[in-house]
C-alpha cells in the first residue's frame, strides 16, 4: 500500500514538473504554411537606405515584425543576428520591420545589438502587404522561390526557424 502511495506521489510530482517545464517560458508557437507570393515592397530603413524586396529574389528571406518595446521580440534579435551571420553566404537575408518604436529607442537598440541586417520602421502598407500583422513578434519565412512558406506568430522556438531556413536554403531549384 505504502509503495503504491509513493508511486502515485511520484507520478503526480513528475506530471507537475513536466507541466512547469512546458509552461515556464510562456512561449507560443504558431506556424502556418502560406505558399503565397511574397509582396514586392520598396521601403526605407532607419539609416535612410533603400530596401527593395525584389533585390532579394533567389534568396531565403526572413521578415521579422518586432519592436524594441516588446520583450519577446527583443530577446529574439541576437538570434536573428546570429542566423544572418551564419547563413548569409548561403543566401539568407533577414529584414526587420519595427512596429511603433520611438526612433531614438530604435536607433539605440540597433547600435547596442550591432544589428547586421536592415531594419525598416513599419507602416500600415507593409503590414497589409503581408496580410496583416496583429501581434508581435511575427516572422514570415520566404523561400528562394519567392513564396511565403511559413508564419511564426508569438515567441518562437528558434531552432524551428533555423531548421526551416536550412531546408529552404538547400531546397532544389525549379
Amino acid at each position: 500500500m505504502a509503495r503504491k502511495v509513493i508511486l502515485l506521489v511520484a507520478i503526480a510530482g513528475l506530471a507537475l514538473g513536466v507541466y512547469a517545464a512546458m509552461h515556464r517560458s510562456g512561449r507560443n508557437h504558431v506556424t502556418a504554411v502560406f505558399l503565397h507570393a511574397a509582396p514586392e515592397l520598396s521601403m526605407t530603413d532607419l539609416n535612410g537606405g533603400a530596401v527593395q524586396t525584389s533585390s532579394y529574389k533567389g534568396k531565403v528571406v526572413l521578415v521579422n515584425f518586432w519592436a524594441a518595446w516588446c520583450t519577446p521580440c527583443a530577446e529574439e534579435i541576437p538570434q536573428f543576428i546570429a542566423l544572418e551571420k551564419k547563413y548569409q553566404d548561403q543566401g539568407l537575408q533577414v529584414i526587420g520591420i519595427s512596429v511603433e518604436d520611438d526612433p531614438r529607442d530604435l536607433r539605440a537598440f540597433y547600435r547596442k545589438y550591432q544589428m547586421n541586417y536592415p531594419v525598416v520602421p513599419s507602416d500600415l502598407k507593409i503590414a497589409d502587404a503581408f496580410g496583416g500583422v496583429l501581434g508581435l513578434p511575427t516572422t514570415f519565412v520566404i523561400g528562394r522561390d519567392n513564396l511565403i512558406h511559413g508564419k511564426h506568430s508569438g515567441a518562437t522556438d528558434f531552432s524551428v526557424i533555423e531548421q526551416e531556413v536550412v531546408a529552404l536554403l538547400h531546397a532544389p531549384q525549379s
Partner: protein
Amino acid sequence: MAARMNPGSISSRTLILRWSILAAMAASAMAFASGQNPAKPADELAPGSPLLIQPEELVQAMKTRGPGRPVVLYVGPKSFYLQAHIPGTDFVGPVRPENVEKVRARIAPLAKDAPVVIYCGCCPWDHCPNIRPAFAELKKEGFTRVRVLYLANNFGTNWVEKGFPVARGE
C-alpha cells in the same frame, strides 16, 4: 543457492526503486521551483484570474443593451487598431508616462462603477507591456468593475483567426 534475506532487510531492487522515485520527485520539484520567482509578486492577471474575460464571454456581453454592456477600451499600438479591432471599441493607446494624461482624459467621463473591459493583444500575454499598466491606471482612478480580455498569444491569433467580429480603421 539463492541468497536469503533477513526479515526486515531491503532488497537492492527496492532500494533502487525508492531512490529513483525520490530523484524523480526532486527533479520535478526543481523544475517547478525554477519556474517560480519568489521575488516576483503574484500576477493578478495570470491566466485563470476572475479579472479576465474570455473572447466568447465578451462577444456575448457586447450584445447586451443597457448598463450591463461593457465599455471596451483598446490600450495597444495604433497600427494594430487600424488593421483590426473589436467593433465598438474606444482607442486609448498604450498607457505610458508620456500619454497618461491623455488616457485619464479619455476615461474621465466614465462612471467609476461602469463595467469596463480593456484589451491589447500586441504580444504574448505574460509579456504585454500595455495591459498591466492600463489595468493599474484604471484601478488607481477608482474604477471598480474592470476586466481584461485574455488573449494568450495576440489579437490576430486569439481573436481574428477565431472568427470573432472585427472592424477596421478609425
